[in-house]
């Protein structure tokens, strides 16, 4: 009886310690995640201006206004265009490189090292350098090299037709390394027995790739795709530093618009309604990603 009592006491003590250990992190979570998350929903149904201190309840007015805000609609279109550009280019290039790097060439260690260099570099530094490289006329190195083979390069960042594609390419090169290494890992983990069996059955080259390797890699590809989509939707530094949303708003993306409305125009309430839209999209994508993750581990087991 006495023993049982002391055991219970021990459990209580352990539980107390448990709470004490998570307390700082959870309090931080409350203050830095939970309260702000509730706040954006509350802000979004108010006409709130940080500069003038106005704060008037306005129901769904902010959301209704979004539908008539041509800049916002353009922002959504641009963000989707940006993601549609980044994701396929990134996936195709990183898959190709990952397969290439699985060969046992002696230069591959060097190649692995350099594809990861931009990943550890800050987005700001990378954007600054590419802003120079993409200068118009024959000023920038890219256009200079193009002029050597007789092509007159456009003013990449100041032309509405090329600004977005320039930003997309800059971003793809910056982030390619992570996906290359993730895919390399996945390729190395492919079940050898299956591939050997397929080879014995006469599958090789392109057929082995499309019928055996690619389907086996599909779960990882889908996972990486979701992570890349979410990352693309959150793009900000590249845009802010290279084009500042221009020319003529052709590179204005959703986070840039949140920043612009909240911290340049001080329309806090309106900006929060855009944040709610961004949050909902990321939430949906994350739920898809997590369910894919579950299926992936199902395959792994």
């Amino acid at each position: 009886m006495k023993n049982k009592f002391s055991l219970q006491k021990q459990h209580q003590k352990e539980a107390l310690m448990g709470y004490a250990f998570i307390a700082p992190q959870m309090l931080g979570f409350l203050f830095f995640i939970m309260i702000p998350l509730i706040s954006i929903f509350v802000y979004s149904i108010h006409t709130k201006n940080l500069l003038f201190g106005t704060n008037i309840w306005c129901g769904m007015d902010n959301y209704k206004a979004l539908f008539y805000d041509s800049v916002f609609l353009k922002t959504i279109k641009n963000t989707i265009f940006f993601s549609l550009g980044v994701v396929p280019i990134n996936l195709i290039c990183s898959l190709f490189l990952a397969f290439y790097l699985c060969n046992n060439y002696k230069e591959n260690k060097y190649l692995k090292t350099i594809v990861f260099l931009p990943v550890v570099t800050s987005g700001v530094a990378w954007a600054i350098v590419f802003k120079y490289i993409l200068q118009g006329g024959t000023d920038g190195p890219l256009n200079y090299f193009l002029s050597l083979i007789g092509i007159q390069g456009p003013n990449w960042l100041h032309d509405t037709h090329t600004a977005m594609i320039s930003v997309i390419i800059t971003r793809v090169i910056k982030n390619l390394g992570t996906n290359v290494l993730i895919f390399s890992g996945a390729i190395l983990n492919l079940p050898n027995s299956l591939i050997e069996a397929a080879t014995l059955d006469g599958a090789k080259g392109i057929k082995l790739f499309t019928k055996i390797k690619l389907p086996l890699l599909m779960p990882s590809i889908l996972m990486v795709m979701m992570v890349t989509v979410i990352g693309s939707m959150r793009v900000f530094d590249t845009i802010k530093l290279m084009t500042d949303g221009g020319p003529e708003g052709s590179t204005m993306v959703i986070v840039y618009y949140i920043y612009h409305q909240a911290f340049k125009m001080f329309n806090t309430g309106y900006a929060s309604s855009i944040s709610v839209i961004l949050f909902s999209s990321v939430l949906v994508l994350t739920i898809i990603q997590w369910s894919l993750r579950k299926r992936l581990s199902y395959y792994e087991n």
Partner: protein
Amino acid sequence: MKINNKLHLTKRTLIIVILTILFVYPFWWMLVNSLNNANEIFGKPSILPRSWVFYNYVEIFKIQPFGRHYANTLLVAFVGTLGNIIFSSMSGYSFAKLKFPGRNLLFIVLLTALMMPIEVIIIPLYSQMMELNLSDSLIPLMLIPIFCAQGAFSSFMFRQHFITIPNELEEAAKLDGLSAFGIFKTIMLPISTPIIAAAGILAFLSIWNMYLEPLVFINSLNNFTLPLSLANFNDSYGLPQWQYQLAATSLSIIPIMGVYLIFQEKITDAMVGSGMK
């Protein structure tokens, strides 16, 4: 056969050249032109600097308090990383090893922070910090990586790690009369150095590179961090002062590159792991 071999070698060389141009040349171009005069930057690119103007690297400290900005960034990165490791190793340990009601639920709640983009919550964070009179200071920049997504991610890493450690180790320590905190400090932390290093590297890099947060929180020049400082090398017309901007950018990149080249495997492993979270 011989032709085939030659073709193969050409293909390999071509790939080396293309990848070097894409991934190394931008950095090389930056370094070369950080040692040029402004009028030598554009036009025909050179392999080596034309006039070796090392003075550019002195001038950047005079134009704006670049040294101060560098120190600010180091301070924020140091405190942020340390706080991140301390609190997340504690919570990770507790979620893995200590039994208390609501443990799994609370852990799942914490994991929702992983998917919370800072861009979504930056507006209320700003007004909260303003109410606390902390908005134009380095403190929010230190707290965000401790408690937002990066903190939750470290906590997740630590939990996954501690779960793999056999309970017998703790049982033995308990018999020796060690308290839960004693076990954590003298047994659990010392055997976790690889995870501490991995989580620390990730936190440090993410802090070193953060841009939106300082852009929103910091107003006064003295509190700038490196990313803000780099974007701020403009003349009175708002045009960039190229050679200085490139010199400052080089100075901000070089230490990170050095660390990367030394601890390459550790860093890529940690980052690839985080990509699959």
